[in-house]
């Protein structure tokens, strides 16, 4: 029996009380909490392995292959080792803040998965404001990062944390505007409804929105080329410079769990979520998530890092205006041709995207030279 199918949603009603479940929604919550925890932990392990092996291949080497078959147990070994390492709290640190920071950073990332549908209706809570909830929750982990930077009383940590806060404050806006385009087309804020609305994946109807969202979310979760927050070659290890042992493991987990969460949201919003032919829905979901993550690895191995002011400039001068234009165009399309055939809109939207990006990149350069502050 496929338990996941039981959480079927009926027309926008919250799927908190599935009919056949003995014990009502407590039982449902318990099952899904366990599924989410298991999913996140196993996917993060998989991602770490996948990133290290994939990156190694792109860098003309092999990557970990000694521990277990094909090195598959490498993340397990890393996890055991890191968890058993000594936990150091610097003597000048703000002890409580230093202790709390990893938790504050980690919990919101897990909470995001509450509204991610793994299959039709298979989600912990089908909130009717699902995507709004994601936007709200995902920003909280920044507080944890800033606590880490502040609490460590290390200048590198503080600089890293400041960069992180600046990045998330700036990039939240284009990201939300990009989401708004999707919401308009789907006509709902519920994640499950958004997936159900995607007869054509929204990446085709909203190519510009996808681009903006992808760049913005990469910046929010500090993936390269926006990894200024823990920029190896500048800030040693950024905000978690002073963390060791278990607390460092939490941050490491947060980093990949955030990447997983963003991949899952991109999958849900733009790639049609769990929908796909032949294969079971959850497998489609995982395949799409991994594909998105692969692109992130790819950019990480390819691109140099940009500077903090260039990053801000990109958000405010490039992404934000484009996101607004995209919103207007989408609104016009939804209003004027509400019943237009998607196959007609696809080439139109792609053309609009191409023109806008090209034209705007004439106005905007990442900018070289000294930036006066």
């Amino acid at each position: 029996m496929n338990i996941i199918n039981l959480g079927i949603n009926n027309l926008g009603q919250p799927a908190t009380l599935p009919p056949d479940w003995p014990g009502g929604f407590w039982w449902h919550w318990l099952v899904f909490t366990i599924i989410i925890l298991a999913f996140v932990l196993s996917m993060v392990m998989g991602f770490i392995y996948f990133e290290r092996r994939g990156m190694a291949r792109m860098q003309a080497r092999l990557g970990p292959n000694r521990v277990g078959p094909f090195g598959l147990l490498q993340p397990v070994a890393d996890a055991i080792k890191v968890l058993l390492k000594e936990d150091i709290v610097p003597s000048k640190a703000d002890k409580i803040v230093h202790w709390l920071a990893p938790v504050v950073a980690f919990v919101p990332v897990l909470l995001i998965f509450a509204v991610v549908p793994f299959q039709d209706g298979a989600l912990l809570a089908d909130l009717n404001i699902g995507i709004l909830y994601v936007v709200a929750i995902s920003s909280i982990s920044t507080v944890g990062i800033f606590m880490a930077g502040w609490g460590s009383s290390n200048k590198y940590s503080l600089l890293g944390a400041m960069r992180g806060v600046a990045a998330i404050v700036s990039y939240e806006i284009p990201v939300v505007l990009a989401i708004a385009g999707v919401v308009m087309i789907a006509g709902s804020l519920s994640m499950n409804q958004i997936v159900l609305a995607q007869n054509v994946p929204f990446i085709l109807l909203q190519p510009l929105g996808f681009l903006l969202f992808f760049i913005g979310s990469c910046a929010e979760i500090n993936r390269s080329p926006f990894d200024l927050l823990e920029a190896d070659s500048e800030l040693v290890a950024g905000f978690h410079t002073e963390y060791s042992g278990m607390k460092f493991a939490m941050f490491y987990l947060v980093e990949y769990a955030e990447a997983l969460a963003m991949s899952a949201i991109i999958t849900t919003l733009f790639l049609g979520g769990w929908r796909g032919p032949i294969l079971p829905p959850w497998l489609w979901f995982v395949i799409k998530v991994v594909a998105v993550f692969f692109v992130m690895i790819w950019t990480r191995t390819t691109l140099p890092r940009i500077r903090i002011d260039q990053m801000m400039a990109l958000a405010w001068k490039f992404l934000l205006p484009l996101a607004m234009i995209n919103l207007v165009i989408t609104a016009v399309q939804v209003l004027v041709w509400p019943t237009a055939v998607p196959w007609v809109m696809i080439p139109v939207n792609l053309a609009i995207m191409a023109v806008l990006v090209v034209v705007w990149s004439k106005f905007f350069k990442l900018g070289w030279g000294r930036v006066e502050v």
Partner: protein
Amino acid sequence: MEVGGAGKYVYPAAELDRAEGEAIEALKAGSQQPISDPDQWLDEELHRNILLTTVDAVINWARLSSLWPAVSFPACCAFEFITAEASRFDLSRFGMEIVRASPRQADLMITAGTLTWKMAPNIKRIYDQMAEPKWVIAMGACAISGGIFASSYNVVPGYNRIIPVDVYVPGCPPRPEALIYGIRMLHKKIAKRSLLQEG
């Protein structure tokens, strides 16, 4: 934006220099003898029969499979270490490609290069900042005994004057193969650890 002059977070350079000099002299005075290997080696027989439990085996396996090196690359040998990390010799096979810049998160210090008295307090500090359990590989002749520069006025004759060393890899510089062999030796050493020893 207005810069608030020489504020309380800007220390005079002369003061910093003097403090550094004092730290060096203090360390130099206190480390004229080599530190012996700190590991308490239990009787081999005892080890095999009683102490080496399954838990030990799992933990040691995890530790030896993911040795993350710290950044402490003073001189020439650093490039042999970097080459060992790169495509041809590929230390990433052993899960060692994550070179942690922050010593807090590293397990292994590969002391690649000559140690001078001016650098010694920094290396000692990096070592102290590393979280237990931690290991040290002295890579190259300079790291073992000062090597070709042993008679100089500013060279520490071996890292073991200031930090305990687990494995010595000779060579000037050691070839990457030699370094990998040294790392395998360290793996064997780690595999013999027991939780009881850590106290």
